[in-house]
């Protein structure tokens, strides 16, 4: 029951955040150069179209009413029409979703499969901490566009067997995913390391050491389960980060994903596309975080009984 209440609380606060995001995006679009009508319809709109839009969004009414109209349109899935392709933005995003989705998914998988073991390893071998710190630091300090450009160049010039640019099938995503996950691996490893080290000082671990249990037994039975929560939480954050990083990787590898689409749209003032893309990214992040919270609630029932009913 408490757990259900906690979940409900999380869902309500996620909804509030989503509302806040929509306000921010609406405000940003209003602040961009060019009027709202021009933004939604493009520069060649006829007077009729403008009148229709003014009617639909109530452009003669207060900003709050306009926001309400806009929100209602978005809720119906009406994100407007791309100024350039003259197609509904939704269909363009839908066509590009698989590329960005797969790219992010693969990168999260790689980050988890490599980063978690790496983190555990550097935590239990704390005497070599410096090496771990340097390695994870290196992952953070090489920008994607440098690594990406390097990989694209090497794999295209020396025919190393994997496609480096363009999108034909899933194979085209191998290199981009690896490049994208490079940063995520080191963040995952670092978080895992911190989490594991946090658990290692718990009394029950000391007790287990005292009982003479083997180190790997301790890790498997005591540490990993308890260190899982921060790592699972991290995955949502990582996914959001990767969605952003995907933008640059898509650009470098010329992948027709949502990220490169949004960058181009900014350059051309195709605002309807910018709004929809940004809203999508934020929504994915919020929903993912909500899901993660639900999962964490299951792993760690303690969360259901904190004083305020939920975490901040």
């Amino acid at each position, binding site marked *: 029951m408490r757990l259900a209440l906690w979940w409900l609380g999380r869902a309500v606060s996620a909804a509030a955040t989503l509302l806040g995001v929509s306000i921010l995006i609406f405000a940003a679009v209003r602040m961009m*150069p*060019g009027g709202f009508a*021009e933004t939604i319809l*493009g*520069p*060649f709109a006829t007077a009729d179209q403008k009148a229709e839009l003014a009617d639909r969004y109530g452009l003669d009414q207060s900003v709050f009413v306009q926001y309400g109209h806009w929100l209602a349109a978005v809720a119906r899935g009406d994100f407007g029409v*791309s*100024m*350039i*392709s*003259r*197609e509904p933005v939704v269909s*363009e995003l839908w*066509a590009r979703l698989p590329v960005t989705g797969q790219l992010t998914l693969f990168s999260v998988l790689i980050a988890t499969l490599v980063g978690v073991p790496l983190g555990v390893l550097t935590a239990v071998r704390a005497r070599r901490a410096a090496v771990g710190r340097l390695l994870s630091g290196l992952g953070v300090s090489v920008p994607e566009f440098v690594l990406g*450009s390097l990989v*694209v*160049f090497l*794999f*295209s*010039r020396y*025919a190393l067997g994997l*496609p*480096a*640019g*363009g999108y034909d099938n899933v194979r085209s995503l191998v290199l981009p995913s690896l490049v994208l996950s490079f940063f995520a691996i080191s963040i995952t490893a670092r978080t895992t390391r911190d989490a594991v080290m946090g658990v290692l000082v718990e009394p029950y671990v000391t007790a287990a050491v005292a009982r003479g249990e083997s180190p790997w037994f301790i890790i498997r039975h005591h540490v990993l389960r308890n260190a899982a929560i921060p790592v699972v939480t991290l995955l949502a954050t990582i996914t959001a980060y990767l969605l952003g990083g995907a933008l640059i990787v898509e*650009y*470098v*590898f*010329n992948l*027709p994903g949502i990220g*490169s*689409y949004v960058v*181009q749209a*900014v*350059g*051309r*003032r195709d605002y309807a596309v910018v709004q929809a893309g940004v809203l999508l990214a934020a929504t994915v992040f919020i929903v993912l975080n909500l899901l993660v919270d639900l999962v964490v609630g299951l792993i760690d029932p303690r969360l259901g009984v904190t004083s305020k009913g939920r975490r901040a």
Partner: protein
Amino acid sequence: MRHRLLAVPLAAAVLVTSACSAQETSTTGGSTAKAGYVATVDDSLPAGGTLDVELPIDIGAATGLDPQLADVASSWQLMSLVYETLVTVGPDFAVQPALAASWENPSPTKYVFRLRDDVFFSNGRAMTADDVVGSLQRLLASQSVWRGQLGPVKSVTKVDDKTVDVELTTAYTPFLAALANVPAAVLPMKEINEKSVDVTKTMLGTGPFKVDSHRQDVSWAFGKNDKYWSDGEPRLDGVNVTIATEEAARVASLQSGKASVATLGNVDSKSMLAGASGVEVLSQATTDFYYLMLNTQVSGSKFADPRVRKAINIALDREQISSVALGGQGKPTGVTPTGLPGACDPAGLPSATAGAEEAKKLLAEAGATNLTFTLSIFSTAPAPAVAQVIQQNLEQVGITVKIEQMDEASWAGKVYGAVPATFDAALSWFAGYADAGMVTKWWNPDVAVFNKGFMKSDPALSSAIDKAVVLPAGDARTAALAEVCTKVDEDAQMLPLVTRPSTVAYRTDAASVGLYATEGYGNALRLIADFRKKSA
């Protein structure tokens, strides 16, 4: 609204090809190309196959795919696969027959076009004189900037099924050259009038290829137009175009063989691809040129005093702009593009013969000794490089330039968006077209309109321009054009700088391509109907 004003200047900006003077590279794969060409197609290769081409930018205007409203060279290039004009330009800018098999010029103001017999739109319908007349009339009635280039057209009439008359109000020498560009293409007027085809959303023309599919900003698949009028053409069964914004992505595709042909923007492409086996880099000269805009119309303009503008013009080192910013490709130019017949010699212009001391003196006289201004540019290479060399040039005479770089959409908004315009100075390039008199028309803001916000018309200059476009080719016209050059140099509101190079690269094991030595309409794929595919 500002997008309508992007017009030709910015426009052109979007095409990111660039490169080198023709003489330097007149050989391809060991064999010498014909005069007027940088590369010629190997005729012994069999026809067939689909060619993979990568370009930096898709047709991206808010006007959609309507060729008459296309004002960007990169759009003209893609549209030329599908659309054709009555006449076309050959190597070295001779006008050649295209959809018109021949034409007569019975008086300076009258042209009679004999249409080719066996021309079909790719939907199978035969092209008629009505399509030709309808297309030109539609263009003249449109908002197209190309109306200004087409000249003083009085009437377009159908004489019979195969003959079309065009009458001009006055003589206009660039008429045929203007007719040779994509905005003057023959459209399927029957379908447009029936509303069965929306040319803003799809392309249907008489050209060698037809559109099989298009994903905006991602790719085009072009198939062969089976009823194309030119025997044996197109040689290819199809062309797949991939849009790759990042230069590095196009280079990668060339290296890996994913692309057979690509246009490149970096002026150093040749040395950068030197280590890649099987990739040949061609440098094409163009008549396009960079120019500097000095806004004289904003209140309190820093350039209202002609002496200040003259000093800036003198301080600009066009040789250095060419050698440093453009890697030695591109040449100094006056307002008549270097490379076109009848163009003036930029070395003889007043600004080229004066020195830095003269510039400093002029600035002192004008009381502008500590001049500081902002130069607005778009971020597409190599414009930032050109701007930075300009900045260095002007520092020599004590002028401080602050560069403000933005994407093309914002740049166009700033430069063309307001009357009077709010910027100090701006940099862009014009496509140079195919006749030395054409681009000079933009120096009369009353004709060009898009630059009214930052430039005032000079009656003496305007009449010199009008005089030069009326005169038939010959010594008198060359002298008149030289006069225009000098007047533009003195007026110095829009300062011509250097021509813009263009680079095309291809895989020698996958394609055989043809390329003119000099191009006027930014079309690197002009000869694509004759391109061949090689199988490795």
